C-alpha cells in the first residue's frame, strides 16, 4: 500500500504491518459494523446483563458479540432482523463465557453497582439497586431457556416471530417456553415475598 490513508469520518482505519513483507494492510472497520454497533450496543449490553453476566465481565462479552458480527457480517445478508441475530450470537457467547468461568473455578461477583442517574438521591439509588438485586435473584432461578424467552418478552417486548428467530425455535415453542417461564418467575417472586414477610 502506498500513499496515505486519511481518517475517514466515522470509519476506523488502521494501517498494520504485515509481518515480514514490509508492506502494510489497511483494516477498516466496515461502516456496517459501526452502524450495527451504534444502533444495537445498548440492546446487547442490557441483554447480557439480564442474562446474568456479571458487571466485571460484560465488557468482554459484549465485545465478543460484535467481533462475531464482524467475522460473520456476510452471513447476515438477507436476514430480517439484526436484533434477533445479535441475541442469538449473545446466547452462544454467554454460554461460552460461563464454561470459561466454570473452568477457571468460578468467580463470585461483586455486588451490583448502578451508574448514577442524573438527579438520583442516595435513597433512590439504594432502592433501585435493591430492586435490581431482586430481579437478578429471580431471573437467576430460571434456566437459560426460560430466562432468554422471559427477558426478550417481558423486558424487551419482542414479538413472537422475533423471539422465534432469536431463539432459533418454532413459535409454538416460544409460547410454551414463555408460559413456563412466567410460571417459574411468579413462583420465585412468591418465595421471595414470603421470605421478606417473615423478616
Amino acid at each position, binding site marked *: 500500500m502506498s500513499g496515505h490513508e486519511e481518517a475517514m469520518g466515522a470509519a476506523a482505519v488502521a*494501517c*498494520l504491518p504485515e509481518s515480514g513483507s514490509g508492506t502494510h494492510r489497511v483494516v477498516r472497520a466496515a461502516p456496517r459494523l459501526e452502524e450495527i454497533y451504534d444502533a444495537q450496543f*445498548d440492546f446487547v449490553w*442490557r441483554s447480557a446483563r439480564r442474562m446474568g453476566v456479571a458487571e466485571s465481565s460484560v465488557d468482554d462479552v459484549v*465485545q465478543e458479540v460484535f467481533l462475531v458480527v464482524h467475522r460473520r457480517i456476510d452471513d447476515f445478508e438477507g436476514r430480517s432482523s439484526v436484533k434477533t441475530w445479535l441475541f442469538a450470537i449473545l446466547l452462544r457467547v454467554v454460554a461460552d463465557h460461563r464454561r470459561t468461568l466454570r473452568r477457571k473455578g468460578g*468467580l463470585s461477583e461483586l*455486588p451490583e453497582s448502578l451508574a448514577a442517574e442524573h438527579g438520583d438521591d442516595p435513597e433512590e439509588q439504594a432502592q433501585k439497586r435493591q430492586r435490581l438485586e431482586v430481579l437478578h435473584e429471580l431471573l437467576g432461578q430460571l434456566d437459560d431457556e426460560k430466562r432468554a424467552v422471559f427477558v426478550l418478552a417481558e423486558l424487551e417486548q419482542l*414479538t413472537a416471530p422475533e423471539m422465534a428467530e432469536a431463539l432459533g425455535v418454532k413459535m409454538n415453542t416460544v409460547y410454551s417456553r414463555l408460559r413456563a417461564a412466567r410460571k417459574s418467575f411468579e413462583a420465585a417472586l412468591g418465595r421471595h*415475598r414470603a421470605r421478606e414477610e417473615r423478616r
Partner: protein
Amino acid sequence: MKDFDDLQELSAAARTLLDETRSLHDPSPGDRDRVKRAMLGAIAGGAGLAATTAATGTAAAAGTTIATAGGISLGLKIAAAVLLAGAVGGTTLLVANPSDEPATRAATHVAAARATPTGSTGAMVVEVAPEPEPRRESEPAPVVAPQVETAATTSRRPRAAPREPTPSVEPTAPPSSLAEELALLRRAQRAIAAGDPSMAVRHLDELAERFPDGVMVEEREAARVVALCESGRREDARATAQRFLRERPASPLRARVSGACP
C-alpha cells in the same frame, strides 16, 4: 402482549418489578465508547479474522492496538503519516498518530516518537512506543500506541496490554454496607477509566461522607489522588497524596499514590 392473548398475564407484583427495573441495565455513553475502542483495537490486531476465545478479551492481546487521542471519541481517527518507501526490503513505513484532536493527557501517555534514519535509504523510521496499561486500575483511560515494525527494527515485537476480567474474589457475601461501599468505589474507578474524573471525585466525596471509616478508605484516597490529578487539580492531588503517605506509611498503596501525580 398482543401476541400472547392466551397466556396467563403476569401478576401485578411481577409487572411492577419489571417496570421498575427495565431501564436499569442500560449502558452509559462511557461504556459504549470504551467497548468500541477495545473492539476496534481487537479487529485491527487481526482478531476479527481469526477465532478468538470468547469472553476473555484476548483479542486485545493479538497484537497492535490503537491509540486514541482524547479520552472518548466515537470511532477511531487515525491519520497515518506517509513515510517513504525504502528500497531495501521494500520497507514501507507508516506511522499512526492520534488525529488532529487536541493533545490530551491520553496523548501524553504515548511515549515520544523517535525518528531514526535508516542507513541505506534515508527513509525516516518513526516508532511510537506503546504504553500498555492495565485497564481496571484507578488510572487514566488506557492508551496504547501502535507499534510499527520495520525491517530495520525487527527486534521490536508488538506488545499490547492483555485485558483480563477483573477477578472478583469475595468468597462470602459481604454485609450490605460493605457492598455499598464497594459499589461506590467501583463507580468512581469506572468514572476515572471512562475519562470523567470530576464524576469520580463526586463519587469519592459521597463515599467519604457515607463511610468515613469504611474498609476501603485507602483505596478511596488513592483513587482520589488519581481523580484530582486527572481533573487538573494537581495541587489538591499532591496534598492528598502527601497526607496519605504521612498517615499510612505502611500502606501497600504507597508506591501507587506517590507516583500518581508527578
